[in-house]
């Protein structure tokens, strides 16, 4: 049975696409993108899963570069996840199409993911509060608006699962964020538990090939 979207839901999705693309494309290109969406995916209930085909079509239609494609996809993913009813899935990005990520970024993602897995396993009831603290803290990090949005999105997704889909966070900001995470986790669970968690996370991250070039301990 096909799940039909209400008019309100459709309008909301169009607005999200418009807001997500407005920084990356000209107003004329945004209009073209909306038209493309309406043509191909107007009634699609599997909203997030359509991001990859939509972006691929858009790139061909507007003759955009592959790096631009990644940026568009990142923006769309981040914006879509703000929807409470959005189905959270990993971005469907082929490995060859990814912009090469820095070692710092990969390890940072791994650290955060490990922390979330741990929290979900042992302290699920504290996650909403933790999320609230994170969102407060992120506002203090003096990030670029784009990076801020991405990090905020990651925090919104904490209750599900998440990877930070952005590279525009520099190492110092990541370290500052790690400091904040450590302080908050210490405050919530005590130093003993937090030390154990961070130690586990470091050991886990050492298994990444990138860790040979960039040690997770430079972040943790």
């Amino acid at each position, binding site marked *: 049975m096909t799940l039909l979207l209400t008019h309100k839901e459709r309008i909301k999705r169009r607005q999200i696409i418009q807001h997500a693309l407005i920084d990356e494309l000209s107003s004329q290109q945004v209009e073209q993108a909306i038209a493309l969406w309406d043509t191909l995916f107007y009634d699609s209930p599997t909203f997030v899963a359509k991001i990859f085909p939509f972006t691929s079509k858009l790139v061909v239609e507007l003759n955009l570069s592959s790096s631009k494609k990644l940026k568009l996809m990142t923006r769309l993913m981040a914006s879509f996840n703000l929807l409470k009813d959005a189905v959270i899935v990993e971005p469907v990005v082929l490995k060859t199409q990814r912009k090469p990520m820095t070692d710092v970024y990969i390890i940072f993602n791994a650290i955060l993911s490990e922390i979330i897995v741990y929290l979900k396993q042992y302290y699920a009831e504290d996650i909403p509060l933790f999320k609230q603290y994170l969102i407060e803290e992120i506002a203090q990090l003096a990030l670029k608006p784009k990076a801020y949005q991405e990090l905020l999105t990651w925090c919104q997704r904490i209750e599900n699962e998440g990877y930070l889909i952005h590279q525009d966070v520099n190492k110092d900001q990541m370290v500052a964020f790690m400091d904040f995470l*450590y302080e908050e986790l210490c405050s919530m669970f005590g130093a003993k538990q937090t030390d154990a968690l961070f130690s586990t996370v470091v050991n886990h991250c050492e298994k990444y090939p990138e860790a040979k070039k960039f040690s997770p301990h430079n972040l943790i």
Partner: protein
Amino acid sequence: MDELQLILNTLWVVFAASLVFFMQAGFAMLESGMVRSKNAVNVIMKNYIDMAFCSLAFWAVGYGLMFGANPTGFFGTDHFVLHDTDSWSYTLLLFQIMFAATAATIVSGALAERIRYWPYIICAILISSFIYPIFGSWAWGGDSESHTMGWLKALGFIDFAGSSVVHAIGGWCALAGVIVLKPRLGRFDKARARVVQNPSKQNKQHSIPGHNLPLVALGGFILWFGWFGFNGGSTLEANANIGKIILNTHLSGAAGVFSAMLTLFIIRKPLLLTSAVNGGLGGLVAICAGCAYMTPPFALLTGSIAGIITIFGSRLLEKLRLDDAVGAVSVHAFAGTWGTLAVGLFHSEQLFNSERLMIQALGAGIACLWAFSTAWVMFTLLNFIVKLRAKTSDERKGLDYSEHFEVAYPEFQQDLLHSGKR
């Protein structure tokens, strides 16, 4: 003094000084065992540097301030960089250097796991060359022959081996440092939004257990052993009273352990090794002031009360959200103050002498006022100028790695070793 007596005195005091020196090893073991493994090297490095730097500072400045000619009663004015004197004075200098290093090292444990290394060394040098010797000059300085005594000593203040002069001074300095430096991350819950959301978690505290309790026990034993030299050597002569002094010391330490355990049992708390060790140390600290003037039963009573004080002192600090990593404040400041008062109560010449008690209370109060206020100013100024507190990222990694770039247990801390550049 005939030649033989001089030789015997020298032998005894030098031996006692060696025992007091060995106490530094006890402090190092005790403190490093009570902290997490990632800070073990840092704590031992602080103890090691205390011994070296504080000895030099005390020799250069502190000894003169403390034991130099004291015309005003407030500080000594000569004997700085003492290098041309008689053999007995050298012996006394050696013994007093060990005391000064002990006073400074008390602070290191309380501030463990979050104070930066170089700023700490500055603090230790200032304590051993200024804060400790100034109060020492009031209580121990000068002599009656030249009528240039320290003002407290002139009043009749008694502190035989330093319950106040050494331990309480170190303990109050530690308290000032604990307040300025703030708790370790994760020691207490943050008092903010979570409290509103979940009042049951208000003022929640998390204990941070030490990484090696056998080391703590070994440190306790070494300190106890060293204390025989600390108190016994304070006679500054080989005489027949040494046996009683050391017996009193031992009984007080034993009573401290017993009463601490009994207290824990009565208040239905687990019988912790750390509490037993601190209870014993509390008893040993408390008896310093009166070990030469009390009969053994009163030494036992003094130690018993000190053991109880260490338990409730620690709990009081926790309630006040003050993070003393090793319990130094309750052991040295609180028990030291009690020991000073106990001389007024249990002096064998006359028990419960109110006049003596008032003088002892004055001395203990002055020790608190002097050490806490000067140390607070020192810590605050240093914190403002050079930042005492380690960065969060360094506290996360541990001060072994961030301050010294080496770790205590490399086999178990592989991730740190693999990290390459800092």
